[in-house]
């Protein structure tokens, strides 16, 4: 057998840093800072109610609007509830809502993108046209419609947003799916007799993961803003349940009366988390695009 290789078995290129930590490090200081913020927000979402120093739900009107003082770092809101406790308790619904939207939009969007890219032809044309129609409906409009039909609440709002975002996800991912579909390794698997479903699930989608993760991260930020707006309008989470969007709205009168803290604090929480998701998402997106140059 003359098939000799072994003289220099060094690989052609040294392998790049791999794994989640390596990925994080490569997003730079801003990316790492964002990831920290997101991690904190997640912890709060999970354990917020337990960490709250005071009861977030019990009103005590005599204490309304009192600013930061002894033990109450952020003061009291319009019904005399501790603002910090409400923020901590509200983290849950404020984060879970967007999560549901992201999962819904990503799963549906990925499915449509991959199926359209795999089958191409008529399926692709029909899917693209259908998506184009959905594009015409902004998320908030759909959420208002959903509230009108199904009643206000987080479920209806989140579902409406997921449907509204789905075409965007599908559009972005379709390009990547088409590119993978056209690669010779996919053709090699087809020639082997592997089914379309197994090739899509085991090969095409995993190779799109960097883009999917980046897209989901950015989407989370948008969903958070939109859901906060919907809750602000009174169509999402209903008061008195703690939620950052609701808190902005219900404490709004305080801004003009000289007590901006409760509204502002809730707003800052939203802004902080959204920026973190955006920054991290953009960095991941850049890396995902660069990987394909």
């Amino acid at each position, binding site marked *: 057998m*003359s098939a*000799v290789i*072994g*003289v220099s078995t*060094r690989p052609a290129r040294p392998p*790049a840093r791999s794994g989640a930590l390596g990925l994080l490090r490569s997003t730079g200081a801003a990316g790492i800072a964002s990831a920290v913020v997101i991690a904190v927000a997640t912890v709060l979402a999970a354990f917020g109610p337990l960490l709250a120093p005071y009861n977030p739900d019990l009103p005590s009107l005599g204490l309304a609007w009192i600013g930061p003082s002894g033990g109450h770092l952020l003061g009291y809101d319009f019904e005399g509830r501790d603002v910090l406790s409400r923020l901590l308790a509200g983290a849950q619904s404020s984060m879970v809502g967007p999560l549901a939207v992201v999962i819904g939009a990503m799963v549906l969007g990925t499915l449509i993108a991959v199926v359209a890219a795999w089958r191409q032809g008529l399926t692709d044309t029909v899917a693209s046209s259908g998506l184009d129609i959905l594009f015409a409906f902004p998320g908030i409009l759909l959420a208002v419609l959903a509230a009108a039909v199904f009643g206000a609440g987080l479920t209806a709002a989140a579902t409406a947003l997921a449907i509204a975002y789905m075409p965007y996800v599908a559009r972005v991912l379709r390009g990547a799916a088409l590119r993978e579909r056209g690669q010779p390794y996919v053709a090699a698997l087809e020639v082997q007799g592997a089914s379309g479903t197994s090739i899509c699930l085991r090969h095409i989608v995993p190779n799109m993961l960097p883009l999917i993760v980046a897209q989901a991260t950015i989407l989370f930020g948008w969903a958070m803003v939109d859901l906060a707006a919907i809750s602000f309008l009174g169509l999402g989470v209903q008061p008195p349940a703690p939620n950052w969007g609701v808190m902005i709205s219900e404490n709004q009168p305080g801004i003009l009366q000289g007590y901006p803290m409760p509204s502002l604090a809730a707003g800052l929480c939203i802004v902080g988390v959204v920026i973190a998701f955006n920054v991290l998402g953009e960095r991941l997106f850049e890396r995902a695009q660069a990987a394909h140059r």
Partner: protein
Amino acid sequence: MTGAESAAAPARQEPLLSVDGLTVLLPVEGQQRAVLRDVSLQIRAGEAVGLVGESGSGKSMTARAIDRLLPRGAEVQGQIYFDGADVSALSGSQLRGYRNKVAMIFQDPRAHVNPVRRIGDFMTEALRTNLGVPTADARRRAVDMLTQVGIEDPERRLRQYPHELSGGMLQRVMIAAALLTEPALLLADEPTTALDVTTQAEVMAILDELRRSYGLAMLFITHDLDLAAAICDRTVVMYAGQVVEIRRSELLHSDPLHPYTAALAAARPEIAQKASRLRAIPGRPLSAFEAPAGECAFAPRCAYAQPTCLTAVPELTELDDGLSRCSRAAELRGHLEAVHV
């Protein structure tokens, strides 16, 4: 120039291009890695020199260094002289003047031409902006040149866009464009690798003919020994970022001076007969930074290696009007003929 180098370029005149001890390091994954090590070669006016090597040999990088097209962060040691001037010291209008005199043709013409501009605009740009030639004049010259490279209906071609031309046509246009500024030196970086073999033969013939008629010097880069030998008088063979042999082209097969050259020629299958097995070189071609330091880069794969080959990097030594970076060159001479099993 050292004695060895000047012997390989028996100068009745100063060489047009002189590369002297060129070492280039590039940042790769945070570290500076050598891609060229101590590369020296000369090209006389009107002379065609081939530059042959496999992956990692540094042949493309050499051309880019000469044309000052190295990527950001590249560290360059050694000198490159063109017409007596130090190329690295040129700037501004001098650099533009240099670019007029040294024209480069790339492997993929589409990547080096603006797709939204017409062929005519692209071809006449250098003439109009750098040399101040009036537009009508420039277009006339472009038409004339397109005819010389064998394109019919050249006026119509000038009005077309790059995507309307096939790869072979576009490469001819690139050659024509390169010749328009009347350069003294042509750098051709694998100009025919992406072309069909019949198109390649045609483009090679044009390149050879025009080069001779305009008296241009040329550095022709390729991975194909026989292609270089077809139109170049001398051939430089590179391995792992170093020059390992410089030889008259017609002697590469019959009397090579370095085991790598002989092995490379022998590894290629023949069109005239089938061998039971090819004489493959074990291992794979290395880049400069992968080659172990302090020894001959080719030794691990060489059929003639001896323990002494692993103790020091051999120098380029002169032998029969050629150069070889093999410490055993003199004694192996005559036994390296590229034969098939």
